[in-house]
């Protein structure tokens, strides 16, 4: 199964303290600096919508957001453009991009450390219903890929996968590791080759 348009969302450690307003100038500054290899275009503010996409940095190849879908606040990387390589490569690319955004936000002076990521919980969505319909067959086909990937991401540590089974929703998985990881540790695990290509 060809997995494209991978979304990775890392949950915020302290959602009750998070204030999304400062993200607007921060995301604008990312556009000014073209802080990513991807083309960054604009900022969309959906804070007024309950459990919505929050603040979105719109890009050509991908969007970044601090997203509150399902009332779970997190940094979300939404890959829009198709990518070559293997499924592992695409999972890795999306996760690395999400982690890089988390690192950038954690070190953002204007946030004063108020946005921290728990490094224990993340969600992966596959934003293409035709390639990855949300049904048992997809879960069965994709789970080995996911296991391999998370094995590497969590350095061999334990984790649990929880699927959303509403067939109308995107195929997605909620992943919880048995312990908290620093964002940098997850990035290291991705980079050191623990995650296979």
């Amino acid at each position: 199964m060809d997995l494209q348009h991978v979304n990775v969302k890392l949950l915020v450690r302290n959602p009750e303290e998070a204030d999304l307003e400062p993200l607007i100038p921060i995301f604008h500054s990312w556009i000014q600096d073209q802080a990513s290899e991807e083309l960054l275009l604009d900022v969309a503010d959906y804070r007024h919508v309950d459990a919505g996409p929050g603040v979105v940095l719109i890009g050509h190849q991908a969007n970044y957001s601090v997203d509150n879908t399902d009332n779970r606040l997190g940094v979300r990387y939404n890959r829009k453009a198709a990518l070559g390589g293997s499924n592992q490569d695409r999972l890795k690319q999306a996760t690395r991009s999400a982690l890089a955004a988390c690192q950038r936000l954690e070190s953002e002076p204007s946030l004063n450390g108020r946005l921290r990521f728990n490094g224990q919980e993340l969600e992966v969505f596959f934003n293409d219903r035709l390639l990855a319909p949300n049904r048992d067959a997809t879960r069965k086909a994709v789970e080995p890929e996911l296991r391999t990937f998370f094995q590497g991401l969590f350095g061999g540590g334990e984790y649990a996968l929880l699927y959303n089974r509403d067939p109308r929703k995107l195929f997605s998985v909620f992943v919880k590791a048995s312990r908290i990881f620093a964002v940098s540790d997850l990035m290291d695990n991705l980079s050191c080759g623990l995650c296979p290509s």
Partner: protein
Amino acid sequence: MKTSNSLWKEHLAGKTPEILAHELDIFETELELRKQGKLDERLFAETRLRRGVYGQRYDNGQRHDGKKVQELAYPSRELTKGPNTLWDAPGMQRIKIPGGGLNAEQLETLAELAEEYSDGIAHVTTRQDFQLHYVHIDDTPTLMRRLAAAKITTREACGNSVRNVTACPYAGVCPDEVFDVTPYFRALSKFLLGHPDCQNFGRKFKPAFSGCSQHACALTNMHDLGLIAVKRSENGQEKRGFEMYVGGGLGTVPYQAKLFDAFVLPEELLPLAQAIARVFAKQGEKKNRNRARIKFLVNDLGVERFRKLVLEERAKLPPDPRWTEYVEAAEQFREEPLRPPGQLPSATSPAFRRWLKTNIRPQKQEGYVVATVALPLGDITANQLRALADIVRRLTKETVRTTVEQNFVIRWVSQSDLLELYNALDAVGLAEPGAGTILDITTCPGTDTCKLGISSSRGLAAELRKRLAEKSFQLDEAVQNLHIKVSGCFNSCGQHHVADLGFYGVSRKMGGYAVPHFQLVLGGEWTHNAGSFGLPVMAIPSKNIPEVVTRLTERYVTNRKNGEVFRDFIKRLGKAELKNMLEDLTRLPADQTDRSFFSDWGDPREFSLGDLGIGECAGEVVSCVEFDLATAEREVFEAQVAFDNGETARAGELAYQSMVHAAKGLVRIEFSDVPEDAEQIVQEFRTRFYDTQKFFDPFAGGKFAQYFFAAHQRTKTPHTPESVRYLIEEAQLFIEASHSCYNRMATPVNV
């Protein structure tokens, strides 16, 4: 952009109405032709606009990032989808929803599309449409296929066409209506969609239906064609009919619609609308788009003269069975509830009480109510759309509509289900109280995504909403009932002219810097179908607008006379007093270190007008002749593809059709009612262009026309690969010659 785009067509085969599937195949080919440089960008722009595919801010590849103008380096840098509009730049997809009526499956489809092609948000517009933003043009054919499978079309959602037919969302259930206009707006919408008489307008054309004259729900007075239900007694029999209004519109200068006919029978509704469309197409301005709406034509001619022209045109129309075939069924049309009627529950929680007070409206059918789902800034998430689909399935027969106030209404809710409904909505953040109150602010997209936006209408609306919500409990009843509407520029998409407090975006230079402002427009009338328009008072810096609202509402509470409505209060106060009251707010604070005034609400960048683009609202004025020639080119392209695939017969048929279309386009220059029949087209073409030698090439004479005549003679002869190869070449030459002929004739666009 989406990997699965090429797979959806097959996946949806059999699920999409054939006619829609065919139209989308054509659109897909047009995209391909444009990519290959075989379709002119201006023509392609109007083609996509007529499919609801709109440009968005920064699509010229430049954006002011707050410090400098930044080049946006899109991958397909050279390819455009319209003049100065880059292919890869994200755009907006408008989705037409006649009368705002949807079912649960359609809500779910919109949810899927918002997630997969947009940014997770579906936006309800002030004309009951939906909009998805940040959509890549390559995804639009697939997006449309998925909509078509749910029986939704985007055709003529933009461009110089008949736009969404809007209607009172309470039609059929409102206690004050004369009769249910639902079957009539549906019939008109279906009849005018793609109608040949509606393809050659200089600008857009917006119809609206209302079931009564006193409420605001359909705003017929500000529409190109407004229809209000009336009844008349004739020979002791009560007959349904419509007051028909023409030439209303907002825009820069608002025009009240004028009464065209006090009583139009349902049997005459469609033919009269068709005749109006024909007069608009023939007489309306084409070159100066600022004067191309029908309101200018009606105003210039006077309604009497306009009526005369329409009636003359009506008399010439050949009868069409569609005019009347719906009428009998319309009389019988009834919407049904799912659950039995019930009693209003006792409100236990204060939140539920507040919601009941503002978001519930009784139906004329006892025991049922209409519940409003108030959407902040017209936005709804994919998850909320799915939840709404579940709710309307469970509690009603999927009777849900969008409103011009950018909300949803759920009709036919049994009163005994209200607590269940409230809890279900509350669980997904859709139980906001304050529907139809000062909190329920209408706004256009403004600088967030619109190329014409000057100030941030959504930013201002969000800020006002936040502040007003904080003190909503203390607000006087009279203030609660006021309407605020915000547009990002003078074009009135936020309908600021018909609000108690209206605002539209402008800019002023202060201290050497551009400062975002809003022009204050006070005292518009929302009721009586937008009965009268407000008057501009003064321009005020964006950041001072919340204080303007505070002062005006407090003064209204303090000084209004018994029962005085806001409009009368403003009139009594007068411009001079308003100026005294607000003048200090027109200035910036003396302390210039406060830089917040130099940026807009929700946008920290230093304010600039550098991102303003050319709006696509007016579309491209492309004559029907050009469309016919473009169709011919597409068909000959498809013929070549079919030939390469070994489909000889189909290739031959397409090549011949392409010649017919090119000839038809030329005939249209002289004869706007060009027939559909190929034999007649050939005859008309021969008489008008061959015998007169107008078609003749200076060097080749009538040779290319003879190819066409010969192809027409051979239509019954079986095709062979060799004959088709020649035919395709001849068709290409004939189309080229048709272009040359059209150019030589320097055809005016008004054909």
